[in-house]
């Protein structure tokens, strides 16, 4: 892209000043001041061009608005002044883009001249020094919102339009830049969707948490690689989903591409470096691109993704080859290229915004009606409202080229085109050379590497490979493993490629194993005088394995156990004594061997993207505008309709999911001593100690909607960022998420545990009304439990875990389990009485622990408290049509709470 295009995009990005809402009348003058302050040579003509009809049509949310006229006939009642002193209750009012919830911004000190403020002035002075328009635009896009937030966290939430304050000026400016680029060729823009798979077939085929992380990280890395041609050609705002601002991989790309200030500060802090190691990009993206370049970009994205995969694979192959040379058969890698080249399935689809070169409303309606469904046009309400305004003589000239609702329809059509593209799924290449070797122990559909021929030769090969001296910077193949090319890449990607590429020491990736996660409580609580710190031991002694905690220390002096090829080498001699005395101490309980994995996923994202869950028009306009529009004939009825999905709402959704994944999930998981594997899009996957799992998931669910900050100033729908300096828009209270939790012994095959977590999410939670937690308990004995916990009951569930952790006995639940069939069939009062009786017959210590956990003052009321919780649980199940066996479900949940508190089989 030439400099002129970047310049035009930058001017479009600043065509409205960020403080536009504070003073509409002078905003054009101020826009010019902002543009000039960034070092762009621009005049009023440039600004007018940047505000051309096409861009306006596309980026404005195009809701019908009354024409307020011009002086001297300006009608005050048809406009909204954001800082109206005369209406203190409606002053500084914004709405949540996805729930319509109102929020009034505080009067901020920063409502002055922002160009003079240190954060903005500091940024702009650096921007002026940059040597290309491309770098300037990138710097503005990346840093401006957070610099505004530095002045005051509320400033980046100022609305683009005070009359429809449901989208921010920052969203609007991003979109203006994106549309400027997409429409520049005069052929109209297009939406381009890209997808990379197989996801579960790659990530979930893992034998350790480190493999799981590696798979997830490679996927994020490849997804970002696929986005690069879009970034380079169309700019960062072109990515409609996911949002890339503050994404660590994008920050790294910016830092490498534009050395020096202001980018050199990116990823410089410890936390930011750590964030770089989190898989945070989904396997799909949607971008807004010039229609004339779709095919080229499609090919470039695929090629960039393939190239990135080959680079990783080549680095791994090169190091393995060098490390194993002279020790193994040189033909060990037969079939490597075939497996690497044939593994990924890359798909792209595109939908032009002006199909057939036309974009009039009538034609678009006809077009969508033909390819979607007959009455698909979602903007009847806005059509009615426009008619109302026309009738009242207050309508602007109706723009015809990007009518409300068309964005949702374009997205729907894009989704269907992608589905049609994926109707024929990828079929991997059949095995060629080396195809007669046994299958990979990690990824069963691929052949293992190593020599063909006799089994003994193969066994000898893997024995040599698994030898400690053939490990690469701490990463090794276990004695029981036989890996394919793809599995080897996954295993060694960190030590052979990412560590170097990202500037880390190989030892800096401290991914705990499942045994260590399971035992986390033990480290802190069991050896209070001298807590054991796995990271410290790894650092000082060069090794750590959670397996040691569950072994007999006397076995450490023996030679490697040939019967247990998965057994890690014993601990270094220097720490054996400390570890042994901690493990064998009679004062403390042994470490817990069970851990929990959760998969969390947003509900009904398709409906959100179609606008089926959008707020009504009444919940979209400023209250003053609502009053005015409802005063017109037909206005009240029209306001009942839903707001058609706009690009800005879409951007808000993308941003909310980004905030959740990037800012909140890592913080919450970390607080609960978990290991986050992946958080991106509306998905998260993490591993936790059992007794932390429910608390963690409750917080995550609350944060998803934006009600977890615990800050009373934050209304529902927003959250404070970790440092308290940013206010984050979240999905709002109408959005929900479901989660699946699998609880398993650390020795259980991780693939089975991951399957269980996904199944708990899909089959238990999503299939039973969504907005719930599905739980699968996989006991080592083979016993399985499937449970459903609506989020409305999760607090009680967590409290019960707490009660059992504090010593409450669960015998009453086991007794009741024997009577469950009878009690299911009896009226609710009988079940309540049985519960009350059972709890009250327990010992005083149990009753007290239960009462304390449930917030009940007197121990003697513990039984009644549990019975009341059951009644609530039953109501929640009734709402889902599952009330008939509520008693059984409740008692099983109580047993599960006890198991989560114990984290072990014995009671």
């Amino acid at each position: 892209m030439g400099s002129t295009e970047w310049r035009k995009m930058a001017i479009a990005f600043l065509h409205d000043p960020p403080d536009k809402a504070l003073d509409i009348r002078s905003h054009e003058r101020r826009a010019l001041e902002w543009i000039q302050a960034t070092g762009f040579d621009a005049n009023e003509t440039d600004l007018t061009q940047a505000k051309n009809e096409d861009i306006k049509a596309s980026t404005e949310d195009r809701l019908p608005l009354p024409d307020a006229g011009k002086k001297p006939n300006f009608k005050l009642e048809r406009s909204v002044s954001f800082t109206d002193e005369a209406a203190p209750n409606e002053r500084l009012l914004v709405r949540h883009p996805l729930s319509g919830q109102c929020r009034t911004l505080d009067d901020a000190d920063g409502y002055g001249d922002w160009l003079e403020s240190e954060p903005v002035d500091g940024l702009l002075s650096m921007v002026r020094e940059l040597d290309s328009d491309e770098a300037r635009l990138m710097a503005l896009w990346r840093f401006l919102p957070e610099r505004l937030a530095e002045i005051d966290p509320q400033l980046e939430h100022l609305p683009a339009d005070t009359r429809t304050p449901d989208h921010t000026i920052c969203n609007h400016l991003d979109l203006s830049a994106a549309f400027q680029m997409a429409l520049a060729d005069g052929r109209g823009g297009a939406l381009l969707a890209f997808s990379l798979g197989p996801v579960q077939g790659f990530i979930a085929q893992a034998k350790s948490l480190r493999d799981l992380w590696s798979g997830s990280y490679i996927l994020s890395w490849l997804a970002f690689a696929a986005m690069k041609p879009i970034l380079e050609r169309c700019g960062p705002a072109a990515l409609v989903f996911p949002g890339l601002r503050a994404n660590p991989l994008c920050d790294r790309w910016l830092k490498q591409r534009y050395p020096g200030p202001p980018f050199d500060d990116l990823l410089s802090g410890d936390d930011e470096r750590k964030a770089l190691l989190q898989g945070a990009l989904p396997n799909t993206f949607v971008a807004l691109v010039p229609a004339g370049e779709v095919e080229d970009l499609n090919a470039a994205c695929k090629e960039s993704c393939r190239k990135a995969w080959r680079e990783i694979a080549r680095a791994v192959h090169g190091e393995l080859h060098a490390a194993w040379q002279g020790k193994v058969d040189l033909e060990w890698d037969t079939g490597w290229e075939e497996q690497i080249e044939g593994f990924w399935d890359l798909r792209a689809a595109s939908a032009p915004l002006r199909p057939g070169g036309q974009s009039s409303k009538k034609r678009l309606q006809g077009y969508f009606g033909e390819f979607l469904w007959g009455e698909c046009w979602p903007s009847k309400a806005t059509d009615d409202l426009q008619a109302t305004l026309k009738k009242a003589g207050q309508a602007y000239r109706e723009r015809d080229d990007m009518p409300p609702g068309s964005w949702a329809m374009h997205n729907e059509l894009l989704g269907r085109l992608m589905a049609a593209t994926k109707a024929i799924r990828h079929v991997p290449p059949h095995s060629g050379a080396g195809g007669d070797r046994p299958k990979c122990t990690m990824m069963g559909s691929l052949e293992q590497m190593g020599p063909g021929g006799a089994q003994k030769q193969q066994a000898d090969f893997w024995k040599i490979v698994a030898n400690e001296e053939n490990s690469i910077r701490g990463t090794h193949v276990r004695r029981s493993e036989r890996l394919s090319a793809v599995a080897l890449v996954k295993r060694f990607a960190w030590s052979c490629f990412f560590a170097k590429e990202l500037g880390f020491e190989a030892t800096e990736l401290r991914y705990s194993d499942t045994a260590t996660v399971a035992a986390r409580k033990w480290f802190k609580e069991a050896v209070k005088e001298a807590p054991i710190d796995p990271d410290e031991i790894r650092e000082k002694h060069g090794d750590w394995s959670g397996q040691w905690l569950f072994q007999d220390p006397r076995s450490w002096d023996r030679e490697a156990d040939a019967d247990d090829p998965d057994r890690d080498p014993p601990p270094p001699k220097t720490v054996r004594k400390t570890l042994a005395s901690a493990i064998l101490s009679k004062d403390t309980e042994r470490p817990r061997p069970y851990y929990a994995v959760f998969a969390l996923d947003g509900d009904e994202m398709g409906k959100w993207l179609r606008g089926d869950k959008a707020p009504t028009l009444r919940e979209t306009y400023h209250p003053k505008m609502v009053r005015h529009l409802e005063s017109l004939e037909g206005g009240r009825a029209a306001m009942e309709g839903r707001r058609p999905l706009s690009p800005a709402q879409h951007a808000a959704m993308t941003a909310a999911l980004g905030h959740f994944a990037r800012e909140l999930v890592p913080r919450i998981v970390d607080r609960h001593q978990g290991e986050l594997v992946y958080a991106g899009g509306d998905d998260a996957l993490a591993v936790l100690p059992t007794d932390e799992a429910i608390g963690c998931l409750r917080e995550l669910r609350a944060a998803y909607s934006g009600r977890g900050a615990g800050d009373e100033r934050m209304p529902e729908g927003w959250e404070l960022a970790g440092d308290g300096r940013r206010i984050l828009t979240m999905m709002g209270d109408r959005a929900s998420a479901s989660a699946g939790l699998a609880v398993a012994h650390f020795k259980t095959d991780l693939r089975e545990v991951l399957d269980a977590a996904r199944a708990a999410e899909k089959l238990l939670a999503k299939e039973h009304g969504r907005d719930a937690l599905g739980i699968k308990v996989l006991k080592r004995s083979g016993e399985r439990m499937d449970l459903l916990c609506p989020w409305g009951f999760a607090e009680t569930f967590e409290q019960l875990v707490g009660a059992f952790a504090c010593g409450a006995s669960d015998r009453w639940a086991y007794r009741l389990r024997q009577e469950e069939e009878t009690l299911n069939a009896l009226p609710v009062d009988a079940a309540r009485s049985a519960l009350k009786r059972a709890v009250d017959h327990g010992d005083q210590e149990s009753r007290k622990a239960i009462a304390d956990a449930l917030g009940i003052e007197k121990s003697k009321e513990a039984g009644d408290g549990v019975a009341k919780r059951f009644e609530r649980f039953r109501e929640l199940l009734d709402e889902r049509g599952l009330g008939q066996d509520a008693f059984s479900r409740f008692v099983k949940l109580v047993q599960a709470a006890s198991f989560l508190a114990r984290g072990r089989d014995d009671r």
Partner: protein
Amino acid sequence: MTKTRLGLRLQPLDVLFFRDGRPFEAGMRASGGLPRPQTLAGALRSHLWRELGIDFGEMRNALKKSDGDVPAAAESLLGENAWAAGIRTAGPWLWSDGSKKGIPPEGPLVPAPADLLSLKNEEKSLIRAAPRKKSPDGWAPASAGMLPLWHGEQGSIEAANGFLTSQGLETYLAGGTPDSKDLIGEEALYTWEDRTGVGIDADRRRAEDHMLYSVRFLRLREGVSLYAEIEIPSERSDEARSLLNRAILPFGGEGRRVELVVEDEPFAWPSPGGAGDGALALLVTPGIFLGEERWRPDARELPGIVSAAVPGSEAISGWDMARKRPKPTRHAVRAGSVYFFEKDCCQNQGAFVRLCGHEESDALGYGLALKGVWKS
């Protein structure tokens, strides 16, 4: 030589186990699935050949001579019973005897066609996608000239997972949309049973250290069994019937067994006439295609595909007895894949169209399809 189809019911005597190709070790779960055509073919061939007197010790030598060609090796040992070397099998499919409330009416159940979709509403209504002759702007086909598979329904939609009853199959092949009650979820037909086991040291007669493992078994619901067919030279059909009927034979892994019952008549697979906008072929067993485009039958042998729904693939391997090593992996497109043709597609060979186009896969029962029509 005329052939007779025999319909077989396979009644499990216990849970069953059909594992994937992944090596299985302590600490791992052997994940099972439904039986594949080659499992059926292997079980029936072994049973018949054993009954007809093949010495499996000699079979190994014969296989070496025949370069791993199993039917050829068997033929060399079967003498006058050589007919049994070239038997073709079909299936297995789930079968409902319709005897219990809550299970489908009597008949086979085939994997849901991949163009069948389910609305995410309470009724879970089914819809069908069909090739769309006028494509929306932006359509980029996988192969030149291919049409997008399209539907015009509103709302959230997902693939219709499960199995189609014989009634649903008939409606589908005639170009109609089956009723949602004709799509049966797997939970109504079978469950998975996870069992944990421990390795036993035979010498010391005690549990071996670190040898805990778990296996996922298939348990068919009451009233549900398996159905298969076998193609026999007509003049030997009585003999085959007597060898097979009421036989108890190992089926799948872990030494689990089934009892065979030869039906009086094989199931009459629907073969609807009637007009549509084109023909379709619905794969009722996985299909292995060795051409350049692995998702479809070879275009030179089966031209005219205008659209397709291929829901994925599964890795197929096996053990090469001659070479004592695994067979190379082939990726078979899943049963339920649908190929749409502008006009008529191909001729039946018996009850089915055989799409693989190579003898080994045909004999094992891969790539069996039923013909139908589609309507836009």
